[in-house]
């Protein structure tokens, strides 16, 4: 484990340029610590009964059916058949930002997305990809075939974040697009008006979808490590601001903390999983932490 963990550091993974390998690395590291599917219980929709065979979990035996038929049947859930996942990538220009980290927010998100994609395909669940800027730009329809990993990863590798962003509008668009209940995994820095975003998230959730919000920020955005006089420029609006970083740090940290807390609170209320991340975190650990919590919760 200790030796493997070494390879999970972002700087090591970066050396492996192929995304599929990267994703494999992450997930293998993750799976080494787990024996059961982390997605167990994501979907609770009953689909059908089947005959009990040895090896099935006796917990799953439907005793009502046994009473009627005097035969052992186990319940089968829909999730086990098809839980459709959507990886929703923010393509805004701000996602291309990295101050001193190996990975930009976008690259970090891709790594995460790839890992999740790999996990889901591994379970034969269909996974699709949606990219958005001011609106939805592109989408790959969900498939559970093994080639899907390759498709998604190659697509992601080609993407360049350069757009302006309107998360709320893109989410609304997505909500309109989805017909069945799906698992929507959003990767974004959420640098937009939080009220609109939260409203759209609620709407998506209201549509019966499971939502996981991966809030990816650069380490610099979380810690504000600048010193002295700096002129900061917004890569999207190209506005700039001159300020004394030392004097500003505490104010900024309060604000960013407040921002994250707002999302956390709102998401909890709406039953959305909110995962605050920054690019300095090892993503296997980030992922594991999230998924373990998720399983315990479920």
């Amino acid at each position, binding site marked *: 484990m200790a030796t493997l963990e070494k390879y999970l550091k972002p700087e090591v993974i970066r050396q492996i340029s192929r995304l599929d390998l990267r994703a494999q690395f992450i997930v293998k590291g993750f799976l080494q610590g787990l024996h059961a599917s982390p997605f167990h219980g994501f979907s609770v929709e009953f689909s059908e009964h089947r005959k009990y065979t040895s090896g099935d979990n006796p917990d799953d035996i439907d005793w009502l059916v046994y009473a009627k038929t005097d035969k052992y049947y186990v319940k089968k859930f829909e999730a086990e058949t098809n839980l459709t996942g959507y990886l929703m990538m923010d393509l805004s*220009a*701000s996602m291309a*930002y990295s*101050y001193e980290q190996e990975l930009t927010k976008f690259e970090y998100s891709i790594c995460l997305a790839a890992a999740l994609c790999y996990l889901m395909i591994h379970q034969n669940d269909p996974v699709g990809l949606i990219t958005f800027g001011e609106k939805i730009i592109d989408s790959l329809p969900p498939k559970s075939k093994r080639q899907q990993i390759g498709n998604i990863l190659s697509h992601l590798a080609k993407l360049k974040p350069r757009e302006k962003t309107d998360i709320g509008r893109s989410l609304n668009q997505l909500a309109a697009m989805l017909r069945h209940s799906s698992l929507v995994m959003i990767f974004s*820095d959420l*640098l937009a008006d939080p009220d609109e975003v939260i409203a759209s998230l609620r709407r998506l959730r209201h549509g019966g979808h499971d939502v996981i919000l991966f809030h990816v*920020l*650069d380490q*610099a*955005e979380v810690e504000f490590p*600048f*010193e*002295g*006089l*700096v*002129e*900061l*420029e*917004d*890569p*999207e*609006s190209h*506005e*700039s*601001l*001159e*300020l*004394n970083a*030392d*004097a*500003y*740090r*505490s*104010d*900024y*940290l309060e*604000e*960013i903390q407040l*921002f994250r807390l707002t999302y956390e609170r709102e998401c909890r209320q709406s039953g959305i999983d909110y995962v605050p991340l920054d690019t300095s975190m090892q993503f296997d650990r980030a992922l594991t932490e999230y998924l373990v919590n998720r399983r315990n919760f479920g």
Partner: protein
Amino acid sequence: MGFLTPALLVGAALVAVPLLLHLVMRRQPRKLTFPALQFVRKRQQANRRRLNLRHWLLLALRCLLVAGLAFALARPTLKGTGLRGKEGAPLAVALVVDNSLRMQYVYENQTRQEQATEMARWLVERLPGDSQVAVVDRSRTTGGFVVDISTAEARLSNLAPETSPKPLEVVVREAIQLVADRADHRQEVFLFSDLSAAEWTEEAFDSINESLLESPEVRIYVVDVGVKKARNMSLGKLELRQNVLRPGQPLHIEVPVAVTDFAEAPLVELFLSSSTERAVKRGQRHVELTDAGTGLAAFELGDLPLGLHQGSIRLAASDPLEIDNTRFFTVEVRPPARVLLLGENSSDTLFMREALSPALISDGRAVQFECVTQRFSQASTLQLEDYTVVCLLDPPPLTEEFWKTLTGYAYNGGGVGIFLGHRAQLSGFNEATVQQMLPGKLKLRSRYATHLRPRNLAHPALAGLKDYSETIPWEVYPVWKYWEFDDLAADVYVIARFANNRPALLERPVGRGRVLCLTTPFSDPIEPSGREPWNLLPTGPEPWPFVAISNQLVGYLAQQDNESLAFFAGETVTLRLAPKQGVSNYVLREPNGDSVRRTLPPGENTIAIGTTRALGNYRVASGGGSSGRLEMGFSINAAADLSRLERVDLRQLASAFPAERVQIAETLKDVELYVDIGRSGRELFSWAITFVALVWSTEHLLANRFYRSTP
């Protein structure tokens, strides 16, 4: 306020540097991309205001730092106001040490003078090598600048207590004058004094102020070496009822005692020594004190033998100030003077004889005069030299021979009293030989009824009556007749006159002797046969004034003046030799036992002694001389106010002088402080640099707080 290195103040211009840095040389900001700008923008306004405030605060502190540093390095000083413009000039310092007897007060095992000397030496050690130093004390010699500082120290060490100090203001004026003469020097006078109220009087203030006005560059530092709450027992001025006693007459001494802050009643002792003996205690008294702490000790000693007696009165207890615990006195017991009374008959001499040596009370009581009566007819056969005084009572014209003898007698110091009466005639008295003795030529017998009325009793011949001058009823003793003189000789002095302003008693010095002439007789009976009486002086009701006058006049003629033999230290003592005492040299024995042999110029009949600085009893003795052994003496005491220990009010003292000219220091520290301020001003460098450090640390603290990297 002044600066030792004012050029460095230019450094304050460096204040421009932080200003320039702040306003002009602003750093170029680093350009960075930052997507989360929206959070920055939210707090922008409030933050900028706060930041601006901090910037300006820091800027102000930094400017203050630079300015403060320049200020501190310029070495600011608080300057004394006097002596401006003489920085760097050498010093002319006069050290005035009060060495009067009062400074012998012992406090903390040190006399005030020792403390003053110690402080003065401490000061001298700190003077720059090129300083001119004068040591001035209160002795009669005038101080001057000494050659070098070690000489000054030696002079300070050798200061002796001064028994007859010059007034303090005189000494201070001398010192001011001394340093003021050094025009190119900085002029300072250090006065070490116990601040006694006896010295610091209004007159002293005025005098010193006047001197300060004359010498505008002199500063005075008064260093207080006194004791705040002094305790003392002291004896005041001795009072002897008589300085010359006759055999049998008791010695009566009174001395006031003053006590400050002692509980017990003081014991006063009387010591007496005659010429040969050592001092023997002859009496002691516990003195009753009043609430004010004063009392009187009185002693009476009888049966003193003939000769010189010297002694002292001492306080038995000891106190911090010893010098006023002993007072000295000298008294002489002399044999009665022999007086020859010449009259025409026994009734002429009766009144005088009874007045001078009353027959009724001759049993052992003190007798001042031993009277011998003779008639004029036997006058030429008498040895006048056997008598001290010869009185002619109502003389008739006498032989020229007798007058010559009498004149010779007077020349050699004899006393002659001539009491003119009805027997005198113009023819017998206006001859040349007689005129050598008489005040002038007889003119007429005045019949103008009048009485004696001496206006001025200052003359020693009548000085004994001074105390009774108001109570003598002169008009009760009328004078109907008296002699008038034509012209008075040039050397005649009228001692007393009648009520009509005519001369009554005249004196004429003849050689070393004295001649008194009364123009009306002292011998007329109340009803003389065949004529009217000239006056009722001896025969009036209760003729005590006559007795008094007779004693005074004869005493004066005998040159037995009741002069005090007590003097103050430093006075020149004049001892009058007996008229016929031929002394060519004598020995002066001083209180410490030393004897000095001195020679007297021929013909000199007084001994003047100027070396009277030591307190105690002095004795003048001569073994030879034409009339045998000479033994005289006198006492030297300190002036009573030398033991006045009350202090002058410091505020009064401070307000009496211009503040910038006279400083009062109570401790060496004060002296040091004043001297530092007075010379170079008080250096404020330490304060200024502390201020700078304070500003600097505040700036650091604020800067760190404002720009700390993580909260």
